[in-house]
């Protein structure tokens, strides 16, 4: 009977009185060491992508290296979003994925076109595109 009485009479009083655990976003709370490691890896990924883009001659691999740079940026986004307890970082990674997919479609179309003209993937084959 007491339950029934509670629902009808004690309106607008807090029903649950057991102590609530101190609340953090359970799964997203990560220690600063993890964040630091992720930031370091993101910086290294970006730099690897950059070095790869500058040193490889194969056009497809060059575009793959830009994807590597995207990965570095996305990882930094997630890490900083974790620091800020904010899902906006993850939303930005969705946009990064979108741009990466669009870039892959366009870049690969271009590469196939260029390959048909010169029968090679070497980016040096298109040297005359640079200014004088």
């Amino acid at each position, binding site marked *: *009977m*007491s*339950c029934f009485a*509670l629902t009808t009479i004690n309106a607008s009083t*807090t*029903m*649950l009185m057991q102590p*609530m655990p101190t*609340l*953090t*976003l359970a799964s*997203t709370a990560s220690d*600063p060491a*993890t964040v630091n*490691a*992720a930031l*370091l*890896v993101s*910086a*290294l*990924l*970006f730099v*690897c*992508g*950059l*070095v*790869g883009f500058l*040193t490889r*001659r194969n056009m*497809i691999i060059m*575009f*793959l*290296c830009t994807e*590597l740079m995207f*990965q570095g940026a*996305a990882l930094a986004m*997630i890490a900083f*979003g*974790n620091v*800020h*307890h904010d*899902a*906006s970082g993850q*939303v930005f990674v*969705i*946009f990064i994925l*979108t*741009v990466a*997919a*669009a870039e*892959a*479609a*366009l870049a*690969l*179309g*271009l*590469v*196939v*076109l260029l390959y048909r003209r010169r029968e090679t*993937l070497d980016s040096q084959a298109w040297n005359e595109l640079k200014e004088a």
Partner: protein
Amino acid sequence: MDFATLSHASSIPAAFLLAADDTGVMTSPAAALTIACAISAAGLALIMQPGRQGIRTAGTVLALAGFAMLMVEVLARATPHGSDGSMPPVFPVVFGFITLFGAVRMITHPKPVFAALYFVLVVIATAGLFLLLGAEFMAFSLIIVYAGAILITYMFVLMLAQQSPVAGVGDAWYDRLPREALSAIVVGFVILATLSNAFFSPQAQSDRADTFERTELSGTVNAWQTLDAMPKLALASAQAAYVESLKSLKSSNDGATTSATTAAKIVALVPDAQGNRVRTRGADAFVMAQFADGTTIELALPVSALPTNSRHVGVELVSKFPAGLEIAGVVLLMALFGAVILARKQIELGEDERRELAGMRRFTIEGESGGTGAQR
């Protein structure tokens, strides 16, 4: 020398000075990071030497040592007052090593298909890091979209455009020889040193720690507001919380009131003055539940009612960035058009074919080999 000024982001020349100064080599935070970056860069430079296996092995060892130094230094900085005796985090370090191994192999491997496969490794290890950072939805969508879709497209094009290997020659020369390796690595080193000094300066570390503390509460409140944006889910969790509380009440009354305590159905959640159905008090949330007979009751929501990561990201995406979402759609549509136009088979007609199509006589006499593009 004032070390405090050296901890600033753009102090690389000063860091070099310090590194040369034997009194304070390892005491300066900037110098330690910069030296580790330099060792990694030197290792990468050696790995890029084509063809010489011994040098490449030495480079691998050097790059590994540099990366390990960086990792140790960076992890030490995460705890500001030295090591507190706790274990270093295993999984981030392991995933970091796998990621970097894949990345370095990708940019140095002479076979393009293997490079693409190493990129898949990078993507998977990065997804592991995403998981550790609490971004479950993005971790799995990264694998689906990157490893499942984008990389497959790359593989297709690689195999379409792959030249058949000439016997005895092996890989194409342009895949074996790096272009301007040294200057590229110098550029990479400068960017890496700047980035790592910016990320891991004591100032940035304490800023991050402050931000983490400061936003802990607002992040939770934000999550509860996400639940508020999903009325059906909020109602369901309120009902579940009500049933749970009835159960716990019943067990605490040790069976005295066992009769007929079926939970009444909550028909609505009464919004407060700001229109929030899920109200927050500190980090806790409660709702004003309304039953069919019009009575209301205040119910505290348990932690388990917090929206999951994918719900959180989804609500954030459509409520905070609707314009971005629309633009992303337009970008994808334009990419679709662009790819179709670019990849369409382009038939180049010679002069004769064009004249024929226009109903005119051919320039060249039949049988002569003067026609351009007649084979097409």
